[in-house]
């Protein structure tokens, strides 16, 4: 008997929303492994802006969408940093779920694609899953 996964997905989504919406504010603001490796050889100021030397990061250019309202994981116009980061995280989680989930839902094998155990298509009713067609 297959269990549905929607309850689990809803719970998982709630966890993701809490992580991106609240916990994200306690994330380290130091440059990550890639960024710090690329800065090796350069000297930087307190804002991690390059002040001299030679390093792979020195030729970095602005992002094409640096003016996006959600650029750099904040919401433009929201001055409260905590709120700005948290809300952008919430938007990101919901957007990623919508894009990813929507894409995967469209791509999924419909029951009609694979004949049921008795050889005829299992029909389109999403709730009626023949047992034994796992994966």
């Amino acid at each position: 008997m297959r269990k549905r996964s929607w309850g689990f997905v809803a719970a998982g989504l709630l966890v993701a929303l809490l992580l991106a919406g609240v916990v994200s504010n306690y994330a380290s603001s130091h440059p990550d492994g890639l960024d710090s490796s690329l800065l090796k050889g350069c000297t930087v100021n307190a804002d991690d802006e390059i002040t001299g030397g030679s390093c792979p990061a020195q030729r970095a250019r602005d992002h094409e969408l640096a003016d996006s309202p959600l650029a750099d994981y904040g919401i433009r116009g929201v001055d409260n940093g905590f709120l700005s980061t948290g809300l952008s995280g919430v938007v990101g989680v919901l957007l990623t779920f919508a894009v990813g989930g929507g894409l995967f839902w469209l791509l999924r094998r419909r029951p009609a694609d694979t004949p049921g155990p008795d050889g005829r298509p299992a029909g389109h009713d999403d709730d009626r899953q023949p047992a034994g067609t796992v994966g």
Partner: protein
Amino acid sequence: METLAMHISNGIINGPVAGVFAAVALAALTFCVLRGRRDLDDRLAPMAGLVAAFIFAVQMLNFPIFTAGVSGHLLGGALAALLVGPWVGALCVSVVLIVQALVFGDGGVAMLGLNITNMALLGTAAAYLLIAGLLRVLPRTPTGLAVTAFVSALVSVVVASQGFVVQYWLGGTTDLGGNLAGLAGTMAGVHLLIGIGEGLITATTVATVAKVRPDLVYALRALKPATAPAPVPAVGGVR
């Protein structure tokens, strides 16, 4: 707060090399769609959406790695491969990277092929090869699964970091004066430490899912030990 870039920014790798990797990534993702469709059913599709959303969330959580002034964050390839399989998993990480590049200004849009190749393709592939091997030899216990998750996640991060080194060798915009090995060593060292964090997050997450809903862990379904119902030869793991 200043920029919060986590992925390859514009200008780091030259245009032609970025273009080649965009083509490579597009071809590989097309293949992942074709293979992934075999796995995607009514149960896996929402789970895959959740995995993508979860990876987005956890990628925001930069953690300190106890070397001065450097942080790390989840890449997610091993987590995705364990929960939804290598093909759909690579697509999950790609969705995250695409959303980050197109909406959050993180990782140049022109660099998307490079970032997808490293984190979604290389990272997930390295992770799943290890997962497929380790789950066969380790005992089918929560500890066995956690060790599998930890090791595959750690190694996948280092492999992904070396993917960048190869890309920099091919098309880096700043002359390193022949010191590519220095970059490789720095990247490997830092990402070994980040990999420990990745391993802990991946193992904790997968162990939790396996405890609540073991049927939702792809790797446990797909990589049956010798007691699989049909006597399939032991090679059919990567589907």
